[in-house]
């Protein structure tokens, strides 16, 4: 595959290295002369000097025959527009953009730049996973398909412990797909009884998280928890 990486910062350089290792053809474009010279010592002809916002720089790097363009500069506008021209002008099939400031995410979405990756978001996801108080962890978001998979840890006070899966009032558009108990996962049946400490995975339509949080969260008004 021919992959164009824009930006030879820490992300771009290491990405290029990995991709070259995997036998892809790679060109990295870097606009800072000093940085370019430094990276060029290692990556040699796989680096190209220039401002990738300019179309002729992209063309010189062979964007017309690129299978994928990855924009990972430190500037969100650059990343957005490089991906926009890559897809709309040069008809590159696959693009990936880095988001530096998570507040710019809506702009990436507005211009149809997908997928976009934000380090802050990734760390937040990890944080959610590592810190159980966050309750609900997003494992996978399929934006196009309008589906997501979440994980929840059942606390001692959860309203569903001791109850049969078949008796749960699962919100419409959601399904319990797996239970992780003492390090082992299984697919629950209607007769599975949930226990405190279980981690449950559910697939759901986006927007149903709150209902699930309430259902699996602490019991309210004494409902449920003693079965």
């Amino acid at each position, binding site marked *: 595959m021919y992959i164009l990486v824009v930006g030879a910062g820490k992300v771009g350089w290491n990405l290029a290295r990995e991709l070259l290792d995997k036998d892809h053809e790679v060109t990295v474009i870097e606009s800072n002369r000093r940085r370019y010279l430094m990276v060029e010592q290692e990556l040699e002809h796989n680096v190209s000097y220039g401002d990738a916002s300019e179309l002729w720089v992209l063309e010189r790097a062979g964007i017309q025959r690129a299978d994928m363009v990855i924009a990972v500069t430190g500037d969100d506008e650059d990343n957005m527009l490089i991906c926009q021209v890559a897809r709309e002008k040069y008809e590159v099939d696959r693009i990936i953009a880095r988001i530096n400031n998570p*507040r710019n995410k809506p702009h990436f979405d507005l*211009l149809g730049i997908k997928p976009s990756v934000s380090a802050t978001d990734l760390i937040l996801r990890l944080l959610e996973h590592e810190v159980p108080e966050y309750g609900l962890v997003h494992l996978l978001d399929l934006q196009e398909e309008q589906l997501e998979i979440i994980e929840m840890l059942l606390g001692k006070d959860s309203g569903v412990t001791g109850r049969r899966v078949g008796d749960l009032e699962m919100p419409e558009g959601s399904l319990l797909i797996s239970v992780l108990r003492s390090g082992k996962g299984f697919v629950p049946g209607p007769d599975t009884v949930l226990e405190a400490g279980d981690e449950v995975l559910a697939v759901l339509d986006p927007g149903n998280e709150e209902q699930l949080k309430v259902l699996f969260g602490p019991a309210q008004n004494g409902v449920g928890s003693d079965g």
Partner: protein
Amino acid sequence: MLREGHEVSCLDEDPESHARLEVGLEKGWEDLGGHFTVGAGLETEALEAAGIDRADAFIASTDGDNTNIVIAQIAQRRYGVPTVIARILDPLRAEWYERQGLHTVCPTRVAINMLESAVREGVPRGGAPGGGDPAQAA
């Protein structure tokens, strides 16, 4: 545009640039009905504070092409501003975005055209078009 009676709102990152707006004005910018907001053009809060929701026209003319192209598209797509103009210095991209339906002004292109005609007018002979009749003048 303010003098013509339009309502004009300026958004700039630098609070100091307000002073520049008042150069040559007999009264203060706000006294004449102008608005000034400090903020970045990529921040939707700042755009909204500057009144983008009710704007009839939006001009993106920061000193960065990329910023202008992005903000202009935000004004167009997210806020549905009827007239959106972006300043793009890079002639190649100005041309392409123009074809994509973005109204662009390319100062580089304008300068090239002006310089070119200035050169043609200044050429003493050789029959350059638009330069009067240099042969007769000689």
